[in-house]
């Protein structure tokens, strides 16, 4: 692959999820998620059934990418915090460890932007360290399992994927 792939193992996943769950509780956030800047979901916590997380992640990534395109135009390297306010629900986003985005969806009647921002900042360090550890495992190449994982994917395997379409 031309660029480093990203591989997430149980250990880091568990840490990220635990941090997000704590964040939901402490800041009284409805739904929290960590995605990467390309729109892939890393982990979610809180109320997730009401929300189409896949769509949310791709739009959030697009939103952050567009905002940072504007940042470059005005001579900023990057915006690091993003906020959208609705009648009732709001979305707060911040950059994590350079290549990830923390998303928090909250109800204005239940909590406040100040509270969300404070708790999100506090969670940032632990989240960033788990994610950085995952990134460096990815970059150290291949997989920690030790054997080539997909070496025996055959052409028939791939054909089968399209059987039902």
């Amino acid at each position, binding site marked *: 692959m*031309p*660029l480093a792939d*990203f*591989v997430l193992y149980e250990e880091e996943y568990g840490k990220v999820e635990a941090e997000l769950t704590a964040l939901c509780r402490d800041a009284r956030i409805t739904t929290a998620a960590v995605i990467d800047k390309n*729109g892939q979901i890393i982990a979610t916590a809180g109320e997730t059934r009401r929300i189409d997380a896949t769509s949310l992640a791709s739009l959030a990534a*697009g939103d952050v990418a567009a905002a940072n395109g504007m940042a470059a135009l005005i001579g900023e390297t990057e915006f690091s915090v993003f906020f959208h306010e609705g009648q009732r629900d709001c979305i707060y986003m911040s950059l994590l460890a350079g290549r990830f985005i923390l998303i928090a969806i909250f109800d204005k009647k239940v909590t406040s932007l100040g509270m969300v921002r404070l708790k999100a900042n506090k969670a940032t360090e632990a989240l960033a360290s788990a994610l950085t550890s995952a990134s460096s495992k990815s970059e150290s190449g291949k997989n920690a399992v030790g054997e080539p*994982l997909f070496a025996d994917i055959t052409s028939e395997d791939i054909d089968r994927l399209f059987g*039902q379409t």
Partner: protein
Amino acid sequence: MSFINFSSREINCKIVYYGPGLCGKTTNLQHIYGKTAADRKGKLISLATETERTLFFDFLPLSLGAIKGFNVRFHLYTVPGQVFYAASRKLILKGVDGIVFTADSQIERMDANLESMDDMRLNLAAQGYDPEKIPMTIQYNKRDLPGAAPLVEMNRLLNPGGHTWYQAVAVEGVGVFETLKDIVKKVLAEVRNSY
């Protein structure tokens, strides 16, 4: 940049449909969406102008099934083809694993095809990719139109690298899944070679 999640046992890959304005990129995604079983697709999101031109991107998540115990998921995106959305096109290429270059077969669109191909190469390079090496499939769309350019000519102009190519009539669904299947194969072959 494929994303492999050992915790949820998922492989996620990103495919971008690139090509000049009105060549039929969005139509490809609409056809795929329409013909895919409900449990294998998410919402088709289109950020479009009032005249249905792509403004930022279209997005369609597909879940293709399992290989070696991993659920294989593809995120399909289209770029906005209109020349003045150049900045958005560059953003959408971030993290791409494979490209479908959709060309418009009408002779009068050949300059637009070439311009889009050049633009794509520059944008890929700007994102750190080698445009010669990224998995790519070429689709010659709108073969139904009377003014369609000969395929030999299109290959000479647009496909010097000798990528696999398909004829398509995306509005009728012709060639759409053939193209998709080809790029999925190429991307998964890369995943196989990387892990």
